[in-house]
């Protein structure tokens, strides 16, 4: 072991050199410079360690898409379709409706079963239709159909969330599907996390409907209408709620553009419909001059203007009691489109930029001090050999930095803790080796044989002990979330790089020293 083959020497030096090259962008450049280099330099290593949200500041949002909402809508629509088909084919039925997990109905004449089955089967693919002998019908969406639908909704929801975040002008946001019905949103470096949450959380379903002026709010309401609260309820002089028709005149799907602007000095949102929407809006307003229509966002009436004249150009403005910011946000939501289903936040972690910067500083101080403590201790305890181990410790840190940069693993605050822990534990391999060498010398061996036997015998122990820690670290990675994953990453990488540096690098140094000095005894 003392006679290192040349190829091993070259390999060790090469690894260290690569480590230095790949770690260098972290030390040489500021973050902005590195970003610029990423655009210009092709092959030159420019990647820096990517910092987690807890260090950069930012928002981590885990949200859940209410798929059941869409499924319930689908079942209601299916029930309506069945009603239409049955009426057309003159099939007698009763009790048609949504049963919570299926659509049910009862045939007046069980003999119509086959006719009914054909009528329903023609409506859509992936329907599972059960009709028993007494004419009771149960229609469910097949599992494959439900899954396809869920995937479609999730993809759509993610797309809408992405558009909204892009509209906010934020860079580097990460929006990922998480499990069956969740979206994980991570946005670094935001000044106003509250606004982000408000904007993402709005379903933003916009509809234009007529106000039912025959019914007073609070009174009995016909089934074709519903009572909705006003968005600015409580403001004097305006009603707190409106009775509006359930029938939608035009919906937000038909919008082609929306922007915040001013009208008579007040912030408003101007919009434009596509051709079809413009025609429908034009027809409806032409026939109903003098009546009220309501602009409704997520079941709240934003405003309910009088139709003074037919609106034929497909353009209009929404004037509620907005602040400038609210008008901008509404325009943004209308441009980005509505979410296919409401979403709720399950988990939020927001770190302000101030705390992030403080954490980085604290982490740096702790790392440097940890390093100094350990180096002083090792040199004090082992003299020259301790100094060699300290060199290996530096190499270890450089390799760890390089590995984090190349893998683009995210460094979190617990991740920094992992690095500090690695600093403390990394010298363990060297301690094991040095203690072995000491023992061999006590057993009467000369320097060269003692070093040789020390490395050889310690090796197995080092592997055993490091692998057990690695098992714990890998499980942490598998089951930990967010920042904890970061801890597992630096701990695992640190274990691997420390094995290399503590074994290979110190061996190279010790062997070089033995060869050049040819000492008669070791200062251990």
């Amino acid at each position, binding site marked *: 072991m003392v006679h290192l083959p040349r190829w091993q020497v070259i390999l060790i030096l090469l690894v260290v050199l690569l480590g230095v090259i790949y770690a260098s962008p972290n030390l040489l450049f500021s973050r902005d410079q590195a970003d610029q280099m990423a655009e210009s330099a092709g092959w030159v290593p420019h990647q820096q360690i990517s910092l987690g949200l*807890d260090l950069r500041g930012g928002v981590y949002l885990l949200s859940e898409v209410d798929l059941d909402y869409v499924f319930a809508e689908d079942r209601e629509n299916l029930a309506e379709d069945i009603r239409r088909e049955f009426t057309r084919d003159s099939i007698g039925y009763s009790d048609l409706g949504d049963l919570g997990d299926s659509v049910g109905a009862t045939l007046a004449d069980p003999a119509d079963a086959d006719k009914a089955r054909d009528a329903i089967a023609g409506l859509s693919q992936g329907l599972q239709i059960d009709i028993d002998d007494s004419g009771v019908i149960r229609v469910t969406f097949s599992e494959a159909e439900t899954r396809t639908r869920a995937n479609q909704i999730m993809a759509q929801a993610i797309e809408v969330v992405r558009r909204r975040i892009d509209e906010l002008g934020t860079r580097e946001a990460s929006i990922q599907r998480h499990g069956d019905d969740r979206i994980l949103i991570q946005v670094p470096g935001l000044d106003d*996390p*509250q606004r982000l949450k408000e904007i993402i959380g709005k379903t933003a379903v916009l509809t234009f409907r007529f106000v039912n002026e025959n019914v007073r709010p609070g009174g009995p309401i016909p089934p074709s209408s519903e009572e909705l609260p006003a968005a600015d309820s409580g403001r004097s002089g305006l009603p707190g709620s409106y009775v509006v028709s359930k029938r939608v005149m035009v919906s937000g799907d038909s919008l082609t553009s929306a922007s915040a602007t001013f009208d008579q000095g007040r912030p408003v949102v101007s919009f434009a419909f596509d051709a079809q929407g413009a025609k429908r809006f034009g027809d409806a307003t032409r026939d109903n001059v003098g009546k009220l229509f309501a602009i409704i966002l997520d079941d709240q009436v934003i405003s309910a203007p009088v139709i003074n004249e037919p609106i034929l150009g497909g353009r209009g403005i929404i004037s509620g009691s907005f602040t400038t910011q609210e008008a901008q946000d509404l325009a943004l939501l209308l441009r980005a489109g509505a979410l296919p289903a409401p979403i*709720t*936040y399950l*988990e939020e*972690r*927001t*770190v*302000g930029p*101030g*705390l992030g910067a403080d954490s980085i500083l604290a*982490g740096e*101080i*702790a790392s440097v*001090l*940890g390093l100094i*403590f*350990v180096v002083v201790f*090792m040199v*004090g*305890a*082992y*003299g020259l*050999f301790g100094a060699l181990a300290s060199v290996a410790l530096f190499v270890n840190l450089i390799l760890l930095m390089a590995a984090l940069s190349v893998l683009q693993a995210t460094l979190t*605050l*617990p991740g920094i*803790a992992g690095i*500090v*822990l690695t*600093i*403390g534990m990394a*010298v*363990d391999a060297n*301690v094991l080796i*040095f203690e072995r060498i000491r*023992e061999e010398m006590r057993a009467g061996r000369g320097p060269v044989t003692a070093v040789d036997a020390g490395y*050889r015998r310690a*090796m197995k*122990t080092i592997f*055993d*002990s*490091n692998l057990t*820690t*690695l*098992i*714990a*670290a890998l*499980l*942490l990675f*598998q*089951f*930990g*979330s*967010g920042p*904890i994953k970061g*801890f597992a990453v630096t*701990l695992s990488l640190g274990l691997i790089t420390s094995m290399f540096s503590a074994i290979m690098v110190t061996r190279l140094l010790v062997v070089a020293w033995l060869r050049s000095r040819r000492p008669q005894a070791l*200062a*251990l």
Partner: protein
Amino acid sequence: MALIRKLPVELNFGFIHRRGLFFIFSAALFLGSIGLFLTQGLNFGVDFRGGILMEVRTPQPADLGELRGRLNALGVGEVSLQQFGEPTDVLINIAKQEGDEQQQILAIEAVKDALGSGIEIRRQEFVGPKIGDELKEAGLLATVLALLGIGVYIWLRFEWQFGVAALIALVHDVVATIGFYSLTQIEFNLATLAAVLTIAGYSINDTVVIFDRVRESLRRYKKLPLPEVLNRSINMTLSRTILTSLTTLLALFALFFFGGEVIRGFSAGLIWGVAIGTYSSVGLAVPLLTFIKLRRGGADEEDTEAETAEASS
């Protein structure tokens, strides 16, 4: 230089001889920790119990009493405030709100309004009831799997008797760490759970090093009685055990004192765990081997295999 030479060369403490003492201490520690856990439980953080956590910085040193009065008047249930590092920094803990996720978000809004502008919100965490339960499950699963995984590894690399002793020591360390968090009432969150798992890894690391030596000594000193072999093995590796613990502790103390408020609870647990893990390797894992019938003797198949393997490496 090289102060290590000042250490006595042949250490010979009677660890095995005093094992009764260690066992009593460990049993007390173990039972005490379980007792603490059962009586006062853990101070679960927002990760596991769900709820809202905010770290805010006030322009002037914070008046906790005044803030508490303001927030308690909101009717969002139990609000606890605590100074966090700097005198201007306050940690606000709000219990899980009745009802669904939406209620939690409303509570955050109410608190923010009550705090008013001029207060910097440095951190805001909200964990809904659903996620809290999921994180708890995942955490428990990770801990159990880590213990099992490590046990299996030891069982594969050593004889099963070693695996049993290591696993007992490991469970001892994990329980003692839980006891530590229960006693100090330091917040138990995802990070502290990571600390517990790291301690499991560290403690076993320490144990494996001594076990390795035990295995080697068993082959080398075939005539010596088992307790004597075990005692020698501990003593031969003692300087390494102490040195490594010290370097690790040095790094951890740097983390504890300078790493910032957010991870202080995490580093405190690690410091305790490294100390306990070191103790348990020497005082528990190896002495336990005296109760277990270890296979000795030269004509053993595995031993020969291992020796040839070593000779050829």
